[in-house]
């Protein structure tokens, strides 16, 4: 029997096509469409080829924003991953403490992103903020609205405060999934606590750590709302990250063409790095060459 006789099967796949088309393909193609045209107004458009791409790639401010973005994501991962694992290791394993710590950890994740920015504005204000006033009271000048370094410290601290709990929760779930026999065998083999971490817990956490690293890289690379509310990209351009610059370009200056070209490049960068991280983490410590 010819398997192509019955075309009704397409009807069953259709909903998936429609959903994917509207959620991903059509919006992406709109951006591609913008990125190769110069649009003056409704109905007035000129095909410009790769002109926007060239312009964007040689834009100095964009390149600066890109390095800033890498530095920010790098710092975020550097603090969040080890801190998250440490918190997960220190969390209670049973008893009423478990639910208490879980709820406490989940709190920052439940707050809307722009509210996080507002919380940190108040928290770090030199005159009334709990942190800002305390630090300044100790005689250390700290003001993220005037000092680029202070702005960076504040933005990174906010990111770490906001997202370390996610890494910790994932790592905690991973740790709980390790069968008790592994720890018993390690005690019988005379392993130290460090050995248990190195040879049992860390290898068993590979999966969840890969996922949390990917999530945290992508999310921190796309960060917008919190630093936008907190610093607005300043002082100067000190904390203008890629998405903040992109919004300025598209909405502020209405340069839809360059903004679209830039979006495509942004998307490709994230795709590339996620793939690299994934490959690296899948192979680390296994000794398998793929």
């Amino acid at each position, binding site marked *: 029997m010819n398997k192509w006789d019955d075309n009704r099967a397409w009807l069953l796949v259709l909903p998936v096509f429609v959903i994917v088309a509207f959620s991903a393909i059509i919006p992406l193609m709109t951006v591609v469409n913008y990125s190769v045209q110069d649009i003056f107004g409704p109905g007035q458009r000129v095909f410009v080829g790769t002109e926007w791409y060239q312009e964007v790639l040689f834009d100095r401010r964009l390149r600066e924003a890109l390095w800033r973005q890498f530095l920010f994501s790098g710092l975020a991962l550097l603090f969040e991953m080890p801190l998250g694992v440490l918190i997960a290791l220190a969390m209670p394993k049973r008893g009423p403490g478990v639910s208490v710590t879980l709820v406490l950890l989940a709190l920052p994740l439940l707050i809307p992103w722009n509210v996080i920015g507002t919380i940190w504005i108040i928290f770090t204000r030199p005159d009334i903020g709990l942190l800002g006033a305390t630090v300044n009271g100790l005689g250390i000048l700290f003001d993220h609205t005037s000092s680029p370094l202070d702005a960076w410290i504040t933005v990174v601290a906010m990111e770490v405060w906001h997202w370390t709990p996610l890494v910790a929760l994932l790592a905690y779930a991973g740790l709980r999934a390790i069968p008790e026999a592994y720890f*018993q065998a390690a005690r019988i083999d005379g392993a130290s606590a460090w050995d248990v971490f190195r*040879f049992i817990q860390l290898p068993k956490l590979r999966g969840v750590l890969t996922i949390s690293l990917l999530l945290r890289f992508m999310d921190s690379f796309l960060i917008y709302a919190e630093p936008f509310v907190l610093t607005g990209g300043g002082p100067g351009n000190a904390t203008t990250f890629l998405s903040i610059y992109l919004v300025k370009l598209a909405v502020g200056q209405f340069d839809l063409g360059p903004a679209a070209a830039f979006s495509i490049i942004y998307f490709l960068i994230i795709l590339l790095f996620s793939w690299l991280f994934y490959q690296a983490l899948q192979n680390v410590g296994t000794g398998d060459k793929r």
Partner: protein
Amino acid sequence: MARIVFDAIAHSYLKTPPSEVSAPEVSAADGDWALRDIDQTWEDGGAYALLGPSGCGKTTLLNVISGLIAPTRGRILFDDRDVTGLTPRARNIAQVFQFPVIYDTMTVEENLAFPLRNRGLGRAETRTRVAEVAETLDLTVDLKRRARGLSVDAKQKISLGRGLVRDDVAAILFDEPLTVIDPHLKWLLRRKLKEIHERFHLTLIYVTHDQNEALTFADRVAVMNEGRILQVGSPRALFEAPRHTFVGYFIGSPGMNLIPCRIADGAAVVDDGIDGARIALDPALAARAAAATAPIELGIRPEFLRLADAPGEGAVAVAIAGVEDLGTYKLVTARLGPHRLKIKLGEDAPTPAERAHLIFPRERTIVYAGGRLVEGEAREGS
């Protein structure tokens, strides 16, 4: 290697255990104690199996030996040295778990060397020991490979090997180690274990709920139920003279027939719905049983019952309720009044008619009072 002695070991997982371990008569309803006052000696170089249903305390007992659990009460001695407060590492015990435990990131060689490295053994000596153990377990070709890529049975051999590398190990404990292994490999690994036992004369304690595994592996089998060791003996002793009705019922497939009865005139009288069926007993046994105050039960293995067509001396009339042909033997279910008995017949034996006569061989018929075996004089020393 060591002789391991349990001195009144009791363990409860509750934070505040009930102050007294309850008496055997009421034990069934009392789940607070996982182990109840166990006194037991595990001889040096013995191959023991711990057999019992799920939740009977087998694993708890094993963890008490290895030191993963500190018993609530009692002392544990290795060669007359009190080790109750010592860590697993200090006790120098090896334990193999139900699921293979290997260190994923290490090679097979590093896995085997790990316990030695932690004890600060020299490099050269470690290498020799690892090579020896790998040879014994047929792991030599895999030594340089990552352990995580190996099959389940190879991984379980690595877990075992981590115990064997320490030549001064006090005992090797097995907690249902073959559960996840394929049936045909199970047989090979079990033979390997026996071989290792014969070669190194280690004390092995093997937990299982599979009686075939226990009976083929061990010289001595300890049957546990509800936190107590009911009997320790050779597979043959457990089969022929179970000291407790639970042992009789748990060992054997199907288990021992147990029928409530009373003793009168040197015979057991079983309610058959008419005027009572008389089953003749050994006179000495009957005399002791008559003296017991607890409820009396008659016990006989399905293998020892015989069927006759015609009534005869000592035969009891029964109704045949069903016959199952199990390939190598026939299993007959007979009704005697309200009781049901299982009879194992050879494959060539004629299938009985609706009514038959059951013969209880006198030397195989035993009596329990309150669940415990009534010793007949003839049976002593077996």
